[in-house]
Structures are given as C-alpha cells and as structure tokens.
C-alpha cells in the first residue's frame, strides 16, 4: 500500500512539473533585464516597476477579474438551474438544448466572436463592459452545463421527492438536497468557466469597445513588442493564489492541531 502511494505521488509530481514548467519559465523571465521572453540577459525588477506604473494594465487586470468573477457566478447559477430542469423535461427538448449548448464550445472562437459582434451591432448595444460580460456569460454557461448535467443524470431523484413529501419547500429541496449532491459537478463548472473567461482573447476583442480591454487583449496586441511586464503580472497572480491556498489550508490545520493539543 505504501509503495503504491509513492508511485502515485511520483506520477502526480511529474504531471505537475509538466504543467508548471512553462509557468516557472514565465516567472523566471519576469526578472529579465531585457525585453526578450526567451533570452535571459540579467536580473532586474524593471518590469514590476513598469507594471505598477502602467495604468492600462492595472485597468485591464480589474476588467479581467471582475468579468471572470461575474460571468462565472451568473453562468454557474444559470447553468446549474438549467441542468436540473433539463433532466425533468421531454427527450426532444433535452436533446435540443444540449445540442444548442454545444455550439459555443464547438465553434472556433472567431466564429462565435463575429456572430456576437453582429448581434450586438444589430441590437445597437454600445460596445464595452456590458457586451463583454454578456458574451462571457454566453460562452461560459455551456461549460457549466456540460459539467453539471452528467451529475444530475446520475443523481437519485427520489431523494428530492422524499424531502418534499416530508414537507420541504421546493426551494429547500433544491438548496438542502439537490445542490449538495451536485457539488463536484458545480465545482468543475466553476473552474472551467472561470478559466475560459479569464484567458479569452478573440471573443472579448470583437465585442468590446470604448477602451475597455482585458489582460488577454493587452497581451495579444503586444505581438510586435512583447515584453515581460505581463510575466511580472503572472508571477504576482501565481504568488497571490499560492499564498491564499496556504492560508486557507494550512492555517486551519495548524489551528486544528493546537485545539487537539489542548
């Protein structure tokens, strides 16, 4: 049993090296004194200074973060409710919604982008933050449904019925019985939605306007003169996530130990 565990840890470690290698390299070049992203020419903090002085990038960070959080939140609620409702409907309707739902995942980003661009123009919506948010909800919700719906399918429907027979309101049955059973699916949906939103360039680019841009737009438009300012930003992002994870997980553990000690 012990031996097996070591093997498992080794394999997981190897996978993580593979996933994190490019990120370590990205962080490494954030300390490069020259503009290059592939040749290290000396140590410096100039890109960090550049980052904090650049109001454009700081604004883009805010746009990316707030859009990702809002879009994830809205699409998770929308997607989860739809998934639950879906399993209770006729087969034809079910198949139809599932297939329509696949369209934004299936279409290349550029097609979705052009489609939405034409749509927003047709409705005379002024392009900017709102249009970007709507577009993000549009392509994030399908990922939530794809993650949650299979869980709904394998869920035992009798539990919710039993709860309601025992006098629970539908709302209580939903929040107390159904949602906890879908926990893993929702968690996966949240992760995928946030990831897709945070990293999107093509769709955001074509549906935004009025000077609203996210980090990806800034990065992609740097093609000619890419510089490590964004690497500095990535390093900070990773650091913040790492510190948060440590605080959330290690601090309660230590606190728990202390309690046990007493």
């Amino acid at each position, binding site marked *: 049993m012990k031996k097996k565990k070591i093997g498992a840890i080794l394999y997981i470690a190897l996978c993580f090296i593979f996933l994190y290698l490019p990120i370590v390299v990205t962080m490494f070049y954030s300390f490069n004194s020259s503009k290059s992203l*592939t040749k290290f020419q000396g140590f410096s903090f100039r890109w960090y200074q550049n980052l904090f002085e650049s109001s454009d990038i700081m604004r883009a960070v805010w746009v990316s973060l707030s859009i990702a959080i809002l879009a994830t939140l809205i699409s998770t609620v929308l997607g989860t409710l739809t998934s639950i409702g879906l399993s209770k409907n006729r087969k034809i309707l079910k198949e139809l919604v599932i297939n329509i739902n696949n369209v934004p995942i299936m279409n290349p980003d550029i097609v979705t982008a052009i489609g939405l661009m034409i749509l927003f123009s047709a409705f005379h919506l002024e392009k900017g933050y709102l249009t970007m948010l709507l577009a993000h909800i549009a392509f994030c919700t399908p990922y939530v449904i794809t993650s949650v719906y299979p869980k709904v399918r394998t869920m035992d429907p009798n539990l919710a019925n039993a709860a309601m027979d025992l006098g629970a309101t539908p709302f209580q049955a939903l929040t107390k019985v159904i949602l906890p059973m879908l926990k893993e699916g929702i968690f996966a949906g949240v992760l995928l939605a946030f990831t897709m939103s945070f990293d999107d360039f093509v769709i955001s680019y074509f549906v935004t*306007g009025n000077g609203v841009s996210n980090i990806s737009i800034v990065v992609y438009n740097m*093609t000619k003169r890419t510089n490590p300012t964004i690497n500095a930003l990535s390093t900070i992002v990773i650091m913040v996530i790492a510190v948060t994870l440590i605080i959330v997980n290690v601090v309660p553990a230590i606190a728990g130990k202390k309690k046990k000690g007493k």
Partner: protein
Amino acid sequence: MVMTLSMSLITGCGSKSNKTLKVYNAGEYIDTELIHDFEKEFDCKVVYETFDSNESMYTKVQSGEKYDVIIPSDYMIERLIKEDALQKIDWSLIPNAEGLDENVLGLACDPDNEYSVPYFYGNVGILYDKTVVDEADLKDGWEILRNEKYKGMLYMYDSERDSFMIALKALGYSMNTTDKNEIDEAYEWLADQRDTMEPVYAGDDVIDNMISGNKAMAIVYSGDATYIMSENENLAFFAPEEGTNIWNDAMIITKDCADTGLAHEFINFMLDPDNAYANTAEVGYTSPVIEARKKAAADDYAEIDAYIPDMTRPNDEVFRYQDSETKAYFAELWTKIKAAN
C-alpha cells in the same frame, strides 16, 4: 472658417474637461507617456485602444465602432479613402509638419497626403547572421533565400503579401501586379523555395528567435531589425537591390470624428520633435520627423543602419489596395504553399 471653428473648439476645451478623443493604434506602438502628456496639455481625455493587425482593425470599424484618429498602414489607408471613411487633413493646423521628411510624403497610397500624416515608416529586408552568412552571397539579392547552402536556416515571414512581394521582386515584377501569370510564377518560386530550403514561416516570434540566434536569416521589417540588432550584435540587415516594400503607418481622421480640432492637435502633438523622439526611442520604429530621427540615430541606434531605410531607391514600392478577388487569389495560393506537405 475651419480655423476659427477649431480655435473656438480648442478654447472651449479649456473650460470643459469632458472632451474625449478616441485613438486606435497598433499594440505597443506608442510611448504611453505621450498620451498622458497630451491629456494634461489639452485638458481632455484620450480613449486609447489597440489592434493586432490592420485587418482586425478594419473588421472592428466595419462593425460600427467609432474612432476619431486611427493609425493604419498605407494599403489600408488607401482602402479607407476609397470607401470614403476619412476626413481631409487641414495641414494649416499642423505646424509641426514642417519637420517631416519629404521622402516619406506623397507615397502612392495617398499621393498628395490629403488624408494621412506619417507616423512611422520603414522597409522590409533580410536580417542575417554575419558569422554564418557569407557576405559574397548577398549580391544574389532575394535569390539568397534559395541558396541551398542555407537550407533549413531561415525564417520567412508568415504573411502572404510580404512573401509574394519577395518572389515577385526576385522575378523582376511589380509587387502590386494583378497579372495572374506573374502571380503564378511567383507561386512557383515560393513553392520551389519551400521544397529546397525548408524555411519556417514564422510570425512575430521571429524577433525573439533572431535575438537568440536560432537561425541564420530572417525576413523582417526594418524597425524590428533595428531592435533585434541592438540586442544581438552579430546581425546585419540588407534590402536587396531588386526592390522591396517600403511602408508607412500614418495618422488619419475618420468621418465619425466630431472634434476635428482636437484630432489635429493630437496629430500635431505627435509630430513635435521632442515627442516624436520619445516615441521612436520607445518603440524602435523610424520616425518621419527629421530632427527626432537624427537624435535617435545618434543616441539610441548608433551604428545600426537598419534604423534609417533609404526611401529613394527606384525599385522600391508601396503596397497598394487589392480588390477582394485578387486578395482571395493570393490567399489561396499562400495556403497552398504553407499547407502542402
């Protein structure tokens, strides 16, 4: 009349600070300090957006997005003029135009500069590693790109216009040809080159790759060459005698622009010798403002000849606007070149 109108607009700017100017430029193509300076000096707000290519800029504008000042390239300016999307420039409002290099004015895309004011300019050539490439081979001009000595050692630029420009010029044709026979001949040239030389068709990653010295030769814009050479001293740049593409990115005012006074002030501001110098020093592309260029050539890019491209060579041309049929034809051939293997 225009003069007094714009004067009143400018003075009006002082009392109210809700004036905005929407500027649309290529990414990383400006010293952003200049935008803040302009906002302060004229008490207005600049909404600054960027694009990654002329074509995506055009798609965006076509979707109904409105901008006041855009900075596209020559052939795109010609297209916008043709589609009646631009306003004429009132040169009397741009006193700093005096400092412009005459060689950068009057290019074929806008012969009298009725609509466009130069921003950056340059040409296209071969960047080569002096330690690998024999200088004697350079006399072959573009044909060096088919010299089997350098098989597997070169980057072509992944753009159909630039690649066909090279083949057409090597064959002695105009790069703006619409003659299908000439285009087909150029296709054969490129297909032959692909088979014998196995080049890599790279995009802007060429910049980092050449700094690291990964291959011996690359097709690059003179402005990029300037920057790469300042980071890797083994490299040199040359534009073959058979002719090359000279390009010019220029500022234009759109029909959507209401506050043309402010737009002209912006253009004038960018041509101020000090501002133009700050811009070229930051970006690395060549300024058409003589004073700024002189200073940059002496201070920042000393001994880098790529910084000042010769605009007077007889065989060089500017890209002209292509109708959609020609463009589709080139695009299809280029897909064939790249995808066939």
